[in-house]
């Protein structure tokens, strides 16, 4: 599994992934539709804000926030935990292990390969965002947008690695999907997916700062809507990547130890 071999295999794996996403369009569409929550929250918060603005958020600010949330969630989504649970139980993981590329790489590339299809969904929303909230509610600072690119990558990595950790736990238990549910429940509360974290009471906001969830969604979205100065943003980016490093460490650990328990039933 040399580095050179892996790098050479990546483009081909990526292409296969893209074809897969196109081939199972219906399934793909279902995944996309199941992330329409921001649009529902948009309706909810618009109704709330139509009576009186919430904090500094009036109706237009909510529109910008949740359309941005939708885009970020589309582009940083990962679902490897489900795949891994299935493959470990069915023994299909054995096929991946046979390949001369590390399975974690193949998972990562397959995930990223869905991006072109996801862009197709996210692009109209991005245009809507520009039209409805105008450029005025989005950040103008070029540095912020640079940080945003790194933040998107970091956000995806956190989501992806968390999925891997939970997926690896399927080596130890029959199904770790229940844990995924718990993770998602906390994610919904602390990520800024359902409401801007600014609206949190101060104590909960402090908690959110020290959990990985807000760096998955809230942070990139806040960058887009211009909630941070470049200095603040850099500091948060640092924290985000600390979480990435931490989770990467956990993944290598559980993967190595878990794999020893893998018994490839069926296959």
């Amino acid at each position, binding site marked *: 599994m040399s580095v050179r071999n892996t790098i050479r295999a990546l483009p081909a794996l990526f292409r296969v992934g893209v074809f897969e996403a196109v081939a*199972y369009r*219906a*399934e793909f569409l*279902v*995944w996309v*539709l*199941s*992330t*329409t*929550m921001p649009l*529902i929250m948009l*309706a*909810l*918060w618009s*109704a*709330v804000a139509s*009576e*009186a603005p*919430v904090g500094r958020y009036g109706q237009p600010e909510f529109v910008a926030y949740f359309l941005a949330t939708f885009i970020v969630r589309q582009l940083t989504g990962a679902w490897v935990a*489900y795949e891994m649970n*299935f493959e470990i139980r069915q023994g299909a993981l054995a096929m991946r292990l046979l390949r001369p590329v590390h399975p974690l790489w193949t998972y990562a590339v397959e995930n990223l390969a869905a991006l072109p299809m996801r862009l197709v969904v996210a692009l109209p929303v991005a245009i809507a965002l520009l039209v409805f909230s105008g450029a005025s509610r989005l950040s103008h600072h070029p540095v912020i947008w640079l940080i945003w690119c790194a933040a998107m990558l970091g956000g995806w990595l956190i989501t992806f690695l968390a999925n891997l950790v939970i997926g690896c736990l399927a080596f130890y238990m029959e199904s770790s999907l*229940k844990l995924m*549910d*718990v993770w998602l*429940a*906390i994610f*919904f*509360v602390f990520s800024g997916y*359902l*409401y801007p974290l600014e*609206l*949190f*009471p101060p104590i*909960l906001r402090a908690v959110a700062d020290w959990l990985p969830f807000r760096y998955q969604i809230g942070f990139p979205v806040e960058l887009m809507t211009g909630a941070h100065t470049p200095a603040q943003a850099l500091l948060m980016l640092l924290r985000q990547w600390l979480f990435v490093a931490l989770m990467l460490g956990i993944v290598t650990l559980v993967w190595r130890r878990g794999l020893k328990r893998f018994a490839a039933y069926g296959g």
Partner: protein
Amino acid sequence: MFRYLRLLGVQLRASALLSLQYRYEFFVDGPIEFFWAITMIIPLMIVFQGRTSVAGWTLGEALVVSGWFVLLQGILEGAINPSLTSVVEHIRKGTLDFILLKPADAQFLVSTAKFEPWRAMNILTGIGVFIYAFHLLGRPPSVLGLLSSILLLATSSLLLYSLWILTVSAAFYVVKVDNLTYFFSSIFDAARWPSSVFRGVLSFIFTFVIPLALMTTYPAQAMLGKLSAATLLSAVIGSLLFALLARLIWLQSISKYTSASS
């Protein structure tokens, strides 16, 4: 009819025995359930931060809707999801043949294949949320309100079930849809909010296309004594019609079933 009741009894007993094998799940599910209830109430608290009503609902009233949401989620995940997820699997693998061969109605058989009794925890959690909500409101629900909300509980379950049957029918046409459960619960998630917060297109969709409003908001209104008799009646008739439609579509799509692989 009697035969089907007995069949239901047999299927229930099998599920009960199966879940007794996984007793520990009860102890895992209990805390998770409690935790879910809390994560559900937090967004509500945020919405109501510093205001007494949203779209005509006070916090206590909105909590009643949440209580119904928890309750129905228990029914969905305990009695509806497990069976129907396995149908999707059957369709994909072609093993549905074995069910179709049995001398009983296929829809009945697939819908009662599996129950998860531990999910009844949700009912307790739901009742807990109701108690807290009515404590905030400072008055108990009326007897008439309770009775009509129990009637609506039946119609809501029927609606949920019919929606699932419709989703499963889709699996006959587009085969690889393992993630339907996930999709379904993400749509159902919108039912935790009182339906009047949604306006325009969404309000239309959630009343007539995916009748979320009928599932949680109406029973909550009934409990609060705010639902008119006419709405109650139309909810009952509407959900019966919906169930009938689902049945027809199921029959239609099962006739399209061409066994895979076997």
